[in-house]
């Protein structure tokens, strides 16, 4: 059910990809996403696909986990495809009443579909191969230059750490509340939109109350463990650049160069 959502899930491992500096992985993921939008021809996607496959194989993350990350967005992808197939004007291939499928529609839909799938798999690989603390430490490090202009980099990163930790807990809580309300005869499945929206109130109110409870308890527990902001904190796993990171950056630069080349040449 609701618990199956694998947001930000980490797949523990010891691969080369797992060991990369999280800062490199974050920047590479962002550039990879930009690259997907630079691509105009299918050959570009072939380049991206091969690169992605290589990363998946090296990381040792089982395909099962990669599909799991894709599952929750399948509907969105399907919707995008349908809109594109039927809405784009051009050379008509098939027509039924006002519905028509054009060559351009098919092409754009395929394009969008591939782009979305590559984008989602690529970004889920970041969270699958980076431990949550690494991810937030990486973000903190990347944001810390902006501390000078008042950006609370450490606090934002700590918020993310806690969010990643508590999303599953809150989902479980939601599940429990829904079941408890259904046991009391609540009906979430029928009626018009307004009725259904109203039915959400008895879920949201207890959920908020329990979120505040958790926040209060957690703040107390963090203080008890000597948390006092970023004053003199150290890290068990310090993020450090090594020769591995340099090699990975070079490989990634080669990938970007290929994407740019195919865009310019084709």
């Amino acid at each position, binding site marked *: 059910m609701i618990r199956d959502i694998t947001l930000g*899930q980490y797949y523990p491992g010891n691969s080369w990809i797992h060991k990369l500096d999280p800062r490199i992985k974050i920047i590479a993921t962002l550039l990879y996403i930009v690259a997907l939008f630079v691509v105009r021809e299918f050959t570009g996607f072939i380049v991206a696909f091969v690169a992605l496959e290589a990363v998946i194989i090296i990381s040792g993350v089982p395909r099962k986990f990669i599909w799991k990350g894709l599952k929750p967005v399948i509907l969105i992808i399907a919707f995008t495809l349908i809109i594109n197939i039927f809405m784009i004007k051009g050379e008509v291939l098939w027509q039924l009443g006002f519905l028509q499928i054009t060559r351009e529609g098919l092409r754009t839909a395929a394009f969008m579909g591939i782009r979305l799938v590559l984008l989602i798999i690529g970004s889920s690989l970041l969270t699958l191969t980076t*431990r949550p603390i690494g991810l937030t430490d990486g973000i903190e490090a990347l944001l810390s230059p902006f501390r000078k202009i008042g950006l609370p980099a450490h606090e934002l990163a700590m918020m993310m750490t806690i969010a990643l*930790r508590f999303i599953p807990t809150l989902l479980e809580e939601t599940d429990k509340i829904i079941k408890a309300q259904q046991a009391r005869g609540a009906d979430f499945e029928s009626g018009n939109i307004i009725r259904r929206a109203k039915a959400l109130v008895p879920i949201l109110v207890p959920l908020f109350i329990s979120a505040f409870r*958790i926040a209060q308890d957690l703040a*107390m527990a963090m203080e*008890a*463990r*000597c948390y006092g902001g970023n004053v*003199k904190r*150290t890290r068990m796993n310090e993020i450090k650049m090594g020769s591995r990171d340099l090699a990975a950056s070079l490989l990634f630069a080669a990938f970007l160069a290929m994407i740019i080349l195919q865009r310019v040449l084709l």
Partner: protein
Amino acid sequence: MEFIKAENLTFEYHKTDDAGQEMSTRAVNNISFSIEKGSFTAIIGQNGSGKSTLAKNMNALLIPTAGKIYVDGIDTSEIDRIWDVRQKVAMVFQNPDNQIVSAIVEDDVAFGPENTGVDPAEIRQRVDAALSWVEMFDYRKKAPHLLSGGQKQRIAIAGAVAMEPDCIVFDEPTAMLDPAGRAEVMNIIRKLNARGITAILITHFMEEAAQADYVLVMDDGKIKMEGSPLEIFRRTDELKDLSLDVPAPVALADKLREEGIDLPEDILTTDRLVEELIK
């Protein structure tokens, strides 16, 4: 040697009610006691008797509104010693879910030592040692939300152990666990105490309190009784007046004595009772 010493300790909560009226609750009311280094003390008392408030005064999460509490000689109201106090007295809370900070077990255990600025290599060592101590080393890469309540509570204990405190205060650590989880947690508490850590256990389970060396009984912000478990649990009627029970084996031994079975007075545990009965 005493490790924690309270002198006329008082704590009042202040809040404004809906009508804007200033309200104050005196949760801990002018109490004095001391806790020996290396001892195992249980604190019992009904809900709202001030146990948690007292616990939070022991590691400067709350600062006394009157009187003093000293931890290893440090006055907790000295603002710049707060971190020393919290490092010396770690705390494990009731709800296992709401005290785990990180999405990976070992990162959570590292949280305390990271906060106090311990060297990375030493943090690694402490985390591995603490996780082995609570027998959760094999789970070090797991996500906490996939663990059972008892396992989560063991992670929370590992997080406290990794800070290398002298004392750990357990505030009803078994209240939300099943019997198996409760037994595991009690085992670890006894093991830690045997290793020299001063243990303070707040509990609703009299069988757990019976395992301590010393028992404090709280009611309405006061310490009403104190003594060894044997002394305390012999005073059945006084405990009843405070809505508290005696451990089941003690109650059963009393009944058997009424029936004319000859039993010694120092029976606290089921094992001991069985041993005496088959003699």
